[in-house]
């Protein structure tokens, strides 16, 4: 059964070596099985062309088979994933193992029907045993699943070794049920896959709302008269069918990955069940196609591992880049939030420097800001260039009195003034709220307000203002900018009107 991979690898250059490395890593040796068409030693680029032209009927069957399988497993697997039944798929797949062997022994041939029936019965028996152990003992489901998975698989392996020792013809190729060989799919196999896939999709579409409510809330489903157990076992039967028809292409060791991985990827990408089903079908088909393609590049490479590697790569992409739950978008959002908070803190510091001069001047010097922020001028420069890029401040504002003629001065733009006022207002309102309503000590409120000022929305601000009866000063006696101050920005050079001053009057 085990053959060295090196002989094949040598002929196909580095690309094939990489693929074989994958297989070695997976602990799998390519098994001798049926070949795609009349395979001859060709360059890998010829193989690529041959695959994508779909001229070869064996390629067409392999592709159709793996596509169907990906769709079927993706859709049915979605229900396993959302119901937290992932291990059920794995158990089902391993439980069919003795059924395949017994189906073969039935009339000592690879009769597809006998193997199909044997595998289906064994799979269903596995689920029944799990249910039975769970219902009659205090063992929990995971133990029952684990035992049935390995127990049935072990029986299957024993039977397989027995068959290997039998002096019968036809027994070669039986091992492709372990790791799968899409290239060995014949027309009849693909037809059976098509029937099963269409049947499964039909059942899911017809009874979508029943499957949905039974998966989300089984208690409620039963309370509204949905025959929950009927739909539960219908799902189990469909899953068993899906596993059994997928065996030739994927192999029973890895078929559960095709039930789980595309569905899990889809779960990361959407939060509606029907979108998830469609996405999982698409991702499953894509994994199937890639798997068939990669395994076609070499001689008799198993399809299953390549399909699962493809599905896993798609999952990794989803994990990294899914818009809402993906790692990269979350990192990017966090980074942007940090940058925004820093910019807002700089705006606030500029405001405070101006406030200390009672807003008598429209621009301040960089050095003043640096000392206020307690950082170096260089650090302030980079913060300022961010503010300039947001169009919150301008540099080197022209001063009529010529006081700040060097280019190291900073002035607000109207939007920068507004944002600075908002932040200062949020900060001071929150401090006042904590002191008055939440009875904080005055010296405890600053740190909390430093965080809250960046996240208060306008609605909350209105509520705070009402709750505090439109206050004028914060607990430390500083003026709180009003909405009017925010919007009546006076551009540099026209004087300080419209800005709150520490001596009361504001327009």
């Amino acid at each position, binding site marked *: 059964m085990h053959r060295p991979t090196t002989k094949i690898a040598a002929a196909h250059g580095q690309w094939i070596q990489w693929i074989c490395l994958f297989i070695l890593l997976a602990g799998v040796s390519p098994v001798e099985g049926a070949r795609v068409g009349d395979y001859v030693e060709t360059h890998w680029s010829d193989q690529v062309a041959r695959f994508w032209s779909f001229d070869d009927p064996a390629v067409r069957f392999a592709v159709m088979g793996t596509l169907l399988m990906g769709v079927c497993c993706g859709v049915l697997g979605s229900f396993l994933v*959302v119901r*937290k039944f992932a291990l059920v798929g794995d158990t089902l797949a391993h439980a069919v193992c003795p059924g395949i062997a017994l189906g073969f022994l039935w009339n000592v041939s690879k009769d597809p029907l006998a193997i199909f029936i044997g595998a289906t019965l064994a799979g269903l028996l596995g689920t029944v045993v799990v249910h039975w152990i769970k219902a009659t003992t205090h063992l929990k489901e995971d133990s029952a699943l684990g035992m049935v998975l390995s127990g049935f698989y072990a029986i299957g392996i024993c039977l397989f070794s027995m068959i290997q020792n039998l002096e019968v013809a036809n027994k070669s190729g039986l091992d492709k049920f372990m790791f799968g060989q899409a290239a060995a799919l014949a027309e009849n196999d693909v037809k059976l896959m098509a029937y099963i896939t269409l049947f499964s999709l039909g059942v899911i579409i*017809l*009874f979508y*709302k*029943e499957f*949905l*409510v039974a*998966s*989300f*809330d089984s*208690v*409620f489903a*039963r*309370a*509204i*008269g*949905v025959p929950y157990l009927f739909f539960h076992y219908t799902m189990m039967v469909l899953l068993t069918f899906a596993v059994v028809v997928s065996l030739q292409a994927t192999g029973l060791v890895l078929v559960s990955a095709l039930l789980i991985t595309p569905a899990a990827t889809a*779960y990361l990408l*959407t*939060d*509606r*069940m029907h*979108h*998830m089903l469609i996405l999982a079908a698409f991702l499953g088909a894509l994994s199937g196609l890639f798997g068939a393609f990669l395994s076609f590049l070499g001689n008799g490479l198993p399809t299953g591992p390549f399909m699962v590697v493809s599905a896993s790569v798609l999952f990794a992409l989803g994990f990294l880049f899914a818009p809402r739950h993906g790692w990269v978008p979350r990192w990017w959002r966090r980074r942007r939030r940090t940058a925004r908070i820093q910019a807002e803190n700089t705006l606030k510091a500029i405001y405070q420097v101006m406030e200390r001069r009672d807003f008598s001047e429209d621009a301040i010097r960089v050095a003043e800001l640096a000392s206020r922020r307690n950082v170096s001028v260089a650090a302030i420069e980079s913060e300022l260039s961010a503010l300039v890029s947001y169009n919150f401040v301008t540099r080197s504002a022209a001063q009529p009195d010529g006081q700040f003629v060097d280019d190291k001065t900073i002035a607000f733009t109207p939007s920068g003034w507004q944002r600075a006022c908002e932040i200062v207002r949020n900060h001071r309102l929150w401090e006042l709220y904590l002191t008055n309503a939440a009875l904080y000590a005055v010296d405890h409120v600053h740190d909390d307000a430093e965080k809250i000022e960046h996240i208060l929305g306008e609605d909350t601000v209105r509520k705070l203002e009402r709750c505090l009866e439109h206050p004028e000063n914060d607990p430390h006696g500083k003026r709180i900018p009003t909405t009017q101050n925010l919007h009546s920005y006076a551009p540099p050079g026209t004087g300080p009107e419209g800005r709150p001053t520490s001596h009361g009057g504001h327009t």
Partner: protein
Amino acid sequence: MSKIDSERLLPLEIHDLTVAYHKQPVLYGIDVTVPAGKLVGIVGPNGAGKSTLIKTIMGLIPPSSGWIKIFGEPFNKAVKRVGYVPQRESVDWDFPVNVMDVVLMGRYGRLGLLRRPSKQDRAIATACLDKVKMLPYAHRQIANLSGGQQQRVFLARALAQESDLYFMDEPFAGVDAATEAAIIEILRELRDKGKTLLVVHHDLSTAQKYFDMLLLLNMRLVAFGDTAEVYNYESLQKTYGGRLTILSEVASQAARNVSDA
């Protein structure tokens, strides 16, 4: 039976109901007859069998003995006239559905097999969401809701069932005061429309204020009647006083003997 007759029938009749759950008896010989148009609180200590009672009525747990009739019929014949709010923790709130999807599930029982929710079903679901003030959240994924909002969604789903008899399992568990007040207001409105509601409730102090009738439960039916009559020291002492511990101990012993035999 004509429609008028069936409407005159009692919403709920329970006769000599005994329930064992995981071989452990939890309810003994319950006899209750609930009249129409009442807001009934089911009150009792932890483990008194409150949830078990309503789950048994709804056919989710098979009774060991006794019978239950809903509007004069067994549950499976009256299923469309019964609405249900399960405990909030009973579902996975990460499930890929939005608020509207969940509320539409309230219509599934009426639709029957093979039919999709129609425009009218959507209109009803929208109205129910509005009623619980959750319409702005209709398209939000259910994981992004607070506990009180989740409870409102479950209530809206039950409203969408348009039933005559409602069972609610701890609808006030883990909700804020505002939500609790809003929910009780909706329950009273339903009651005023002639609906009958049985509500499992944990908090004795508010039970007296909220409900027309109380069903005091502690494995046995301790008392059932108008709140004014039932809410007294003696009944509450019986319900919470732990005098039934011997019954419970002997019952589990008996259950062990049976299962070992």
